[in-house]
């Protein structure tokens, strides 16, 4: 039973009995109103499981909408900037959607489960926007967040783990594809998707079978280094992969209370998701205009001198011209570089000379100020061939 609002601040996911018994750091976070493990034992080791063996992450709190009805495809084509006509059943796509001003409301993944049968997964909740923009379409939109239990299995041995669990032929599943298996009479959907930028899968099942799925994975996974991972380690892999995050790289939809804080798809490096040839979609006119007149901002990767993360630092050019801000930053253990994702004013992202950040480090009762030069690089810092290889490798 879901507790009443007065009874609990955070809800439990279908895996809570398992995750809570393994969470030895006792460090939990709030993910969309659900208790989500920040770290089970050690952030570093969980991160390295994702990069060297395999990591198991509870993604049940992700907001999920079922979008069905005879107009579902054409509705999504109006809502999203990318062309959904090309997306066939069994495929998953990454997408963004905008308001009329061409500013991003959110990003997410769209699973095409069948003809006019979709699932939209996003970070934030958007029911009013989704329903309002559906007026006139024969389409049903339902929040199904609590109705599905989901786990991400990510890392180089993830395919081997699923194979060992009896998912025959899983290695042949292509990136951004989905398929169904039977797990002791329960329907298990598996998609080759994830948020780590590595080989990985997401598993979707009826909440009643959640613990069965968890136990089965952990049992077979022991030979392959499978280890539960909390959200702090996931965040590290997310930045290395150069994925953007709502509330970090952009502030979703109509929620910011200050002007000029929104970003368009072009300003987030998502121009490739905008298809002007598919007919009308929300924000099209504004985006066409932006294409003509130019964007205000560019989202870039930065390679920063030294090893101190430049989180939320100003980015300067030349002597002291302020040209942007760092949204995400970390020392990348895999790339051995001090990386960041930053929003720069155009055209400073093009002139790769004289950029620097100011990093403040607090050490034993003293602030130390580090003037670190940096350069603009591809923000996909980590993108190994094994992520894209089909059949997927074993290790």
């Amino acid at each position: 039973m879901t507790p009443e609002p007065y009874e609990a601040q955070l809800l439990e996911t279908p895996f809570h009995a398992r995750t809570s018994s393994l969470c030895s750091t006792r460090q939990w976070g709030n993910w969309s109103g659900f208790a989500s493990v920040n770290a089970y034992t050690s952030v570093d080791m969980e991160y390295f499981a994702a990069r060297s063996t395999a990591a198991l992450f509870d993604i049940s709190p992700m907001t999920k909408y079922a979008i069905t009805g005879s107009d579902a495809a054409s509705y999504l084509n109006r809502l999203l900037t990318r062309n959904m006509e090309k997306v066939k059943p069994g495929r998953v796509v990454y997408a963004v959607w905008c308001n009329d001003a061409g500013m991003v409301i959110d990003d997410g993944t769209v699973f095409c489960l069948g003809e006019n049968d979709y699932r939209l997964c996003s970070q934030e909740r958007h029911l009013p926007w989704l329903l309002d923009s559906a007026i006139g379409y024969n389409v049903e939109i339902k929040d199904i967040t609590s109705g599905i239990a989901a786990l991400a299995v990510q890392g180089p041995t993830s395919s081997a783990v699923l194979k060992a669990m009896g998912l025959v032929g899983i290695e042949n599943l292509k990136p951004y594809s989905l398929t169904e298996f039977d797990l002791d009479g329960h329907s298990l959907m598996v998609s080759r998707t994830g948020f780590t930028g590595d080989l990985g899968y997401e598993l979707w099942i009826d909440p009643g079978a959640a613990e069965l799925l968890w136990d089965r994975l952990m049992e077979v996974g022991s030979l392959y280094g499978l280890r539960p991972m909390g959200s702090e380690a996931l965040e590290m892999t997310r930045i290395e992969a150069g994925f953007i995050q709502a509330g970090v790289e952009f502030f979703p939809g109509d929620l910011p209370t200050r002007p000029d804080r929104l970003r368009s798809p072009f300003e987030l490096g998502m121009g490739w998701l905008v298809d002007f040839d598919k007919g009308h979609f929300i924000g099209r006119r504004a985006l066409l205009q932006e294409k003509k007149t130019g964007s205000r901002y560019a989202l870039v990767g930065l390679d920063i001198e030294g090893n101190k993360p430049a989180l939320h630092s100003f980015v300067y050019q030349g002597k002291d011209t302020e040209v942007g801000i760092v949204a995400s930053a970390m020392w990348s253990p895999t790339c051995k570089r001090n990386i960041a994702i930053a929003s720069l004013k155009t055209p400073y992202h093009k002139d790769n000379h004289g950029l620097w950040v100011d990093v403040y480090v607090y050490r034993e009762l003293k602030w130390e100020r580090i003037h670190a030069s940096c350069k603009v690089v591809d923000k996909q810092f980590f993108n190994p061939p094994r992520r894209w290889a089909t059949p997927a490798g074993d290790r």
Partner: protein
Amino acid sequence: MKVYDAIVIGAGHNGLTTAAYLAKAGMDVIVLERQPYIGGATVSRELYPGFTYSNCSYVCSLMRPEIMRDLELPRHGLQVIPYEGGVTMMRNGDYFATYPNHDQNRREIARHSAHDAEAYDYFGAETLRQCRFIKKMLLTTPPDPTSFKPRDLFGLLDIARRFHGLGEEWMYDTIRFWTMSCADFLDQYFESEVVKGHLAGTSIIGTALGPYSPGSAYVLLHHYMGEVDGSIGSWGYARGGMGAVSGSLANSFQSYGGEIRTAAEVEQIIVKNNRAVGVALSGGEEVLGKMVISNMDVKRTFDKSMDPADLPEDFLHRVRNFKIRGSSGKLNIALDGLPDFPSIPDGCRGRTGDMHVSDSMEYLERGYDDWKDGTWSREPYIDMMIPSLTDPTMAPPGKHYMSVFVQYVPPYLADGQWNDEKRAAFGKTVIDKIAEYSPNFKDLILHAEVRTPWDIENETGLTEGNIFQGELTMDQLMFNRPVPGYAQYRAPVKNLYMCGSSTHPGGGVMGAPGANAAREILLDMRIKT
């Protein structure tokens, strides 16, 4: 005949590091390697189907992050994965584990001594202080205290300034630290034998000293001053074995246009008019270059690969007296499953890191006594790990690769040379010792590679099988390494350089000697990078 800009002798990690920096700066460089494979002592080989060994060096920490970044080693295939603590199994059936979590660690030490549990923080702060002091010197050419060149004076001044910056008390401590024994150092903090025994292991690795020998405290520090991702003192595995370190260096080098030739043994460095002009290979072929850079240890370079007439006698005399005593052996074992260690509780992750059986300082010192007597330790120090618990590429699922570093093992035995029979007896000593703590261990062995100092020398060329290319004692460090007056990577012959671990800052898979040598060479070439 082609004349290369530079010839590097030996495709060890330092040779490849120097070569990659030079090639990156635009030089035409060839690396010559005696073996049919590269890596020197930073090597991974498949000697049993499905298993990859780290045949010599086996863990990674010291490799300087600056080098990884400069040469883009991650992009060229290097991934370093830290491991979680370690464990010493005790003769009384108990165990002592270490954990990355501070409070877990404190409570574990407290099981053995409440005093030591809290003293551990003082110990940690002191080693960190010493590491911070020395870290700046690693990628710096040691200034010569007898020279009046501005760069030497400035270098000395910088050290002096940082030294004085430590404050009075820590200045005294630092001086003492560099010469004291590991036992004296640890006695300042700890009372528990097993805690000291566990920590003292790194003070003897690769060194023909006991934990009670003066100078051994520095060796302990040498193993602490590495880092994994900014976490000082952490150790990790190179994914794919240590060969991934040399492999990524080779890839980086080749991406800058460098050339590697394997199965090319250098017999002699050719000197004409006091200038190195090339090398003669064992087949008689000559390779010519505008300079020659040796990654071999100093004895192998100057005493075995050069005509003595080409070298000053004083220099050669000092080279011959350079301390490079072999002290260690290695077993690489393919296992059919995970061995049981009944004294380590299930769920204790210490077993994913370094495992030992030396539960006291005396245990270690007695092992050293055997070495002095010209035999391998009857109760050996064992640094044992199972990398396949962390790295799935080392062994098939469910099977495991075990790396066992062993000390003390003398290069020459009291009863004569090493031979196959003695090697087998040495291997048996080690396997029997492990089996005392693991009842099913022997049944799981599929294959074992046993390496004595003799084997290590024969294969990698390291004199006496000394893993550091020369001991890390105060008389052989900094401006005295390898030979006073020749610590700045230049040999007494023009256009001949040294880039191996015989030079500052010494051994371990650090790459710093190679990077420092490259910087000096580029300085001589007036190439700005």
